[in-house]
């Protein structure tokens, strides 16, 4: 048994917002109350000054395993997730081979169990090989444990194919996750089309390249009834489209990354920092402000990292040939705390909804709460710790962070997965 003493508990699901103690026995929470006294032989952990929330979930990461293990493996990805405070992550299927069969799903689940840290919930491909041409074995993947379906990394270019995918997914209790990118418009685009592309002399990736597919896929929700989750939205217009769909009562949700909340195209300077080359690209300050507003007013459902590890040689090169993506698991919580929660712009309850409750609901996972009987999936956060994002922070095999050099306040101190302590005082077990 383990007793966590003196943390401030935050869980809107069970209306807890107070300092209290939590007792864990085995995999479950067995007692929540004030001034609980440690039993003989029980480990007591002082959490005074800390905040405690249900375990964090990131429903959009890339672990590169199988196929690109030199960038990240399931084990190193799980270490990064644990370091960042996460108990669960959902992996996108653009591995090599693409995760488009039950075997691929099973491989990832087995590997993550062997790692024994954060749980991995594979997201299967919508189409075979993510080629957008033929349905993947979605039913087979559901039976092996796929949490959702997406061709992330590519928009499904044909509206007819996307309609087919959504029709098919709708027979299962799963969400279709859309990477919205009309490649006929974004082809060759490297940065946001506008001032940034003009200034740096590079082809632009216009906002419309995303918004057209967001609009199209929302129309397809009306046609198919399939639940749609829009991945990594980056523009104000995309957010407005999702807002309208929600107001209409459609099963449409969306997510945003800290990259698109806290960085803009203006951060890409004449140094051509390739860590800022991401897909979708960093947008305007106006877009970022609108997205932050969407997070705070509840229009955006989840915070995800789109953790995209790349080896040094894939980033230490010309911007135009550098790979798209930034890692994010180890910085996501700190960025949210530093920029939104600690300044009082976002409540702890909202943070819990964005990083714990909604992603579990969308991935069809069992809810986790801070109530007696719940699985002991917990994240203890030290909101006072200050640090600079640097190579030494990362458990990820790759260090391509867009936030290198950023000063952050607040980080995960301890993580429990089904009662097992996977992060101890900031050190991965």
């Amino acid at each position: 048994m383990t007793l966590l003493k003196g943390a401030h508990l935050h869980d809107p699901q069970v209306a807890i917002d107070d300092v209290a103690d939590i007792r864990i026995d085995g995999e479950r929470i067995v007692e929540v109350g004030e001034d609980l006294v440690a039993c003989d032989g029980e480990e007591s952990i002082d959490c005074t000054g800390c905040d405690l929330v249900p375990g964090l979930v990131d429903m959009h990461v890339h672990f590169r395993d199988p196929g690109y293990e030199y960038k990240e493996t399931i084990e190193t990805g799980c270490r990064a997730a644990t370091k960042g405070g996460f108990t669960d992550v959902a992996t996108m299927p653009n591995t090599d081979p693409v995760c488009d069969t039950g075997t691929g799903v099973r491989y990832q689940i087995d590997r993550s169990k062997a790692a024994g840290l954060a749980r991995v919930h594979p997201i299967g491909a919508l189409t075979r090989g993510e080629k957008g041409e033929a349905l993947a074995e979605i039913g087979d993947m559901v039976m092996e444990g796929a949490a959702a379906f997406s061709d992330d990394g590519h928009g499904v270019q044909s509206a007819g194919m996307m309609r087919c995918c959504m029709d098919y997914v709708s027979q299962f209790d799963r969400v279709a996750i859309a990477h919205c990118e009309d490649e006929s418009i974004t082809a060759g685009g490297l940065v946001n089309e506008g001032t940034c592309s003009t200034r740096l002399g590079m082809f632009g990736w216009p906002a419309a390249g995303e918004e057209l597919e967001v609009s199209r896929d929302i129309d397809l929700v009306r046609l198919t009834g399939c639940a749609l989750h829009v991945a990594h939205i980056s523009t104000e217009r995309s957010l407005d489209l999702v807002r309208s769909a929600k107001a209409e009562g459609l099963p449409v949700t969306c997510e945003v990354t800290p990259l698109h909340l806290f960085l803009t195209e203006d951060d890409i300077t004449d140094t051509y920092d390739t860590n800022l080359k991401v897909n979708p690209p960093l947008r305007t300050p106006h877009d970022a402000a609108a997205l932050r507003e969407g997070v705070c007013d509840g229009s955006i459902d989840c915070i995800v990292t789109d953790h995209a590890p790349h080896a040094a040689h894939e980033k230490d090169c010309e911007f135009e040939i550098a790979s798209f993506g930034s890692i994010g698991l180890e910085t996501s919580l700190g960025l949210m705390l530093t920029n939104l929660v600690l300044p009082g712009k976002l409540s702890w309850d909202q943070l819990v909804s964005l990083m714990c409750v909604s992603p579990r609901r969308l991935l069809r996972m069992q809810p986790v709460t801070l109530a007696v009987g719940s699985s002991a999936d917990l994240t203890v956060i030290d909101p006072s710790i200050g640090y600079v994002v640097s190579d030494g922070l990362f458990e990820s095999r790759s260090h391509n962070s867009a936030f290198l050099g950023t000063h952050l306040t607040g980080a995960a101190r301890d993580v429990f997965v089904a009662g097992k302590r996977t992060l101890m005082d900031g050190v991965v077990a």
Partner: protein
Amino acid sequence: MLSVRNLIDTTSLTADDITQILDTAQSFAEVNSRAIKKVPALRGRTIVNLFLEPSTRTRSSFELAEKRLSADSLNMSGSTSSVVKGESLADTIQTIAAMNVDMFVCRAKFAGTPHLITENTDARVINAGDGKHQHPTQALLDLYTIRENFGHLDGLKVAIVGDLLHSRVVGSLAPALRTMGAEVTLVGPPTFQVMDPAWFGCEQTADFDSVIPDVDVIYMLRVQLERMEGAAIPSRREYNRLFGLDTVRASHMKEGAIVCHPGPMNRGMEIMPEVADAPYAKILDQVSAGVAVRMAAMYLLLGGEDNDLA
């Protein structure tokens, strides 16, 4: 001394920098008119011409400039460098830099490559054109040519016409003209227009004919057919009809106005032969100015005041 260590873009140059380069180029232009076109200004210096993208005129211009400054040159192209064998550019630059070279002159397919080179060497770097980003020595030779014609740059009105989107000339010339007090109008079909002309401090229009009578310089851009991905214009014929500079359009030019072009020209497309060869066309003057301007840039970046110019 220039305020910059390397010549990567014109947006980093002050008006004083530009004036200093143009004034120095005037001295070198005199050298280039001598029977013996050589000075010892950069004797003992080693300059690497790293041309990762094909180029004839820019490369020749730099090589001549180096020879006339008595520098030692090493020529590398994309096909002869290790980049094509899979070595990263950073590794290539560090390897060459380890041989104690003084300067890299780099032409690159990708925007930002010259900056990447500066991060991997202490040698000075001149951008000889990076993607559709910048081509600063082209802009400087254009300024030189225009100044030679008008005696000043301040207050001039310049139209840059044509394939704006794919042009590194726009990225470097427009800001440099603005820095020197000139007004710039960008002209081209919407499919060739830049996304944010305000960033260059320019107006942008598709109405070529309305601009012609108002400007002192018409700067015709080459339509970069090799850079076009997809059909941005219906045909060469229609482009020529709407945006080609022919004698009829040229007849509406202000008295004393000149025509420039960075070359190579698509005769019959953006410019008609009769215009290209007319006295008001300063295209060959630009080429001549290129050698002197590049001599000046290399001389000043390598600490020219310590050397003997003559």
